[in-house]
């Protein structure tokens, strides 16, 4: 009986891995079809993410795909966070997949992990495989020095995207990042421009210590101190809608009045709004409470369009065109003038947003 079960388990695992590879190789075609527009979130991302340590499989697969004749393909190894992490990451991954494809002259291998050690392992693997460029969105800011030195010694050029790391800038060619503080400042500036009679703010924070939380929180707390705004509660909901709902609910229960909810991502804003709806408190353009969110998820921009929310700040996940440009410059022998490139990011106001914005910027 046990033996039978064990055999079945092994068979099931083999099946799963075959399916995983199949999904991966099928993916390149549809992703390549629409380079400019936002690629549809692909299932391959999931299957690969389930086995993040399986970079070797991904490599062979990429090599098998590459036509034997074209030796000029630029080999890039891309280390990213798990695409399931958030809508931001899904869009980011789809964007990278769409740009770094064979049609654009790239041979790309992907490795996903939310853990720094696993990412470092993947990086070492890529260096051994002799990639030309290593693109990195590090899970953690520290611990990258030695592996980047290895990369340099082996002539692998490193480009950071989305997140910076604590390493000597000479170890990487460029970093393309979002300025979370600037995102926060833009939102707070917008809030200031509303000229409310008084500001009683519920501040819902992301996971404490994350770059997005620090940047977006600091922007609010500093301006609130300068302007004399009243932050009635400042609490972390860990990017989680239900936790945000509970926090707002507890403020409503306590009977304190508030007129602004500053949520550091869209999911938490969504949870906060659900609590307001349950208590019959109006929100949005014609409502009593102003709702601010971040990350420009499609659903959030639709809420803006409907006037249920007031403001949404962009956190631009589309770095691949910037990276592409840098690689092209380096390949043609040029030099990069700026080491750190901060991406253009926008803020959307419910009163001015259009359907076109929703379609273009929604992730």
């Amino acid at each position: 009986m046990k033996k039978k079960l064990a055999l079945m388990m092994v068979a099931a695992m083999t099946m799963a891995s075959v399916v995983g590879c199949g999904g991966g190789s099928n993916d390149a075609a549809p992703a390549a079809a629409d380079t400019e527009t936002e690629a549809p979130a692909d299932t391959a991302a999931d299957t690969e993410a389930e086995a993040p340590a399986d970079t070797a499989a991904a490599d062979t697969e990429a090599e098998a795909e590459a036509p034997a004749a074209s030796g000029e393909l630029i080999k890039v190894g891309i280390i990213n966070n798990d695409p399931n992490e958030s809508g931001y990451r899904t869009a980011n991954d789809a964007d990278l997949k769409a740009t770094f494809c064979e049609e654009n002259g790239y041979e790309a291998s992907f490795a996903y992990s939310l853990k720094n050690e696993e990412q470092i392992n993947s990086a070492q693997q890529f260096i051994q495989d002799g990639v030309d460029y290593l693109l990195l969105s590090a899970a953690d800011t520290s611990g990258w020095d030695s592996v980047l030195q290895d990369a340099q010694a082996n002539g692998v050029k490193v480009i950071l995207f989305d997140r910076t790391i604590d390493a000597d800038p000479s170890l990487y060619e460029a970093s393309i990042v979002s300025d979370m503080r600037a995102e926060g400042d833009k939102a707070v500036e917008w809030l200031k421009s509303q000229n409310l009679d008084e500001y009683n703010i519920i501040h819902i924070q992301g996971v404490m210590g994350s770059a997005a939380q620090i940047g977006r929180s600091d922007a609010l707390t500093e301006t609130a101190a300068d302007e004399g705004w009243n932050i009635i509660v400042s609490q972390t909901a860990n990017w989680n809608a239900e936790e945000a709902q509970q926090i707002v609910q507890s403020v409503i229960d306590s009977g304190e009045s508030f007129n602004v909810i500053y949520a550091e991502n869209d999911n938490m804003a969504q949870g906060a709004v659900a609590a307001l709806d349950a208590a019959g408190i109006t929100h949005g353009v014609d409502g009593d409470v102003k709702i601010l969110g971040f990350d420009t998820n499609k659903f959030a921009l639709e809420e803006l369009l409907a006037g249920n929310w007031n403001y949404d700040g962009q956190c631009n996940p589309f770095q691949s065109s910037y990276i592409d440009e840098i690689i092209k410059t380096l390949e043609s022998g040029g030099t990069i003038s700026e080491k750190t490139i901060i991406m253009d990011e926008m803020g959307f106001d419910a009163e001015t947003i259009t359907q076109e914005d929703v379609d273009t910027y929604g992730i």
Partner: protein
Amino acid sequence: MQNKSKSGIGAFFSRLVRQQYFIPLTALVLLALFNLIADPAFFKISITTNSAGNAVLAGTPITILDYGSELAILAIGMTLVTAASKGQDISVGAAVAIAGSFILRMLCGGDSSSSTLHMPIICAFLLGCVVAMLFGAFNGVLVAFFKIQPMIATLILYTAGRSIAAWFNNNELPIIKDATFSYIGGFIPGVPIPTPFFIAVICVIVITLVLKFTNLRLYTEAVGINENSARLNGLNPAAIKILSFVILGLCVAVVGLIKVSRVSSINYSVIAKDIEMDAILAVALGGNSLSGGKFNMATSIMGAYIIQFLTQTLYKYKVPSEALPAYKAVVVILLVVMSAPTVREYFSNLMKKMKVKEAA
């Protein structure tokens, strides 16, 4: 005469301390007293009108009943798993994500911002139950047949579950716009009490009836206390263990439905995050042994509401975000130490000694 009545009180206390109800009840009374003294408005219940135009009850006690219900439902399944398998299922949060994601996938039929439901909610829910029970059975098989420790066996689903959940919906974030779907995690029109509380009450009634009219309790405890003697007495320990995981799967599906209904959407990476820890804690707070055997369902459920009571209290007093887990930890350590069998024994011995002294 006087001595006799005093020793009566001593005996009463020593009996009380040994009762399983003692710890959760004490915790509840302490939390309630603290809030009553600090701010009696904590217990204020009022009637407000929600945005759908229904009169509903509002106030912190209602919020506790509302949000604690999910945990209470999970505590039912976790108590059974703990009792039968001598270990805990740590994949509950991931399994909630799977169930929730599957239910949304069924309802929106692959269209991520569908405005109409593709099937009745009850059908989607029942299918969700089947899926969650299958995943529960998977855990159960690993534990029962392969004799893997429950925490290690469920680690598999804990790691992979959220990716599977995302995969059901092609990694999109489906939004259900149909108003009836939000009733489950909110209020049914005309009923002023939150629906999740009703669902929890139904679950509690069902499990009470099952425990009363079937041999589930006897069999589960028998397997948990001594698997070999249970087998020698004609029970099938593997089947009982799998059954406990399947029942937990059912609880998970119910919680998944409530969770996705609350915001009519899902976020795979954070939905029901760390809820397994709270569910295990609820079982421990209920004075149940985490190494299996005899169990008390009622105290586990009380434990769940106490955890929510604590969370709501911490929110109420605006404990800073950075310190929130630390505060929770301090209270949890106190409660768990108090409910540890050795400590309980020590206190009951102390009571006995006092009784002897009084008698002398």
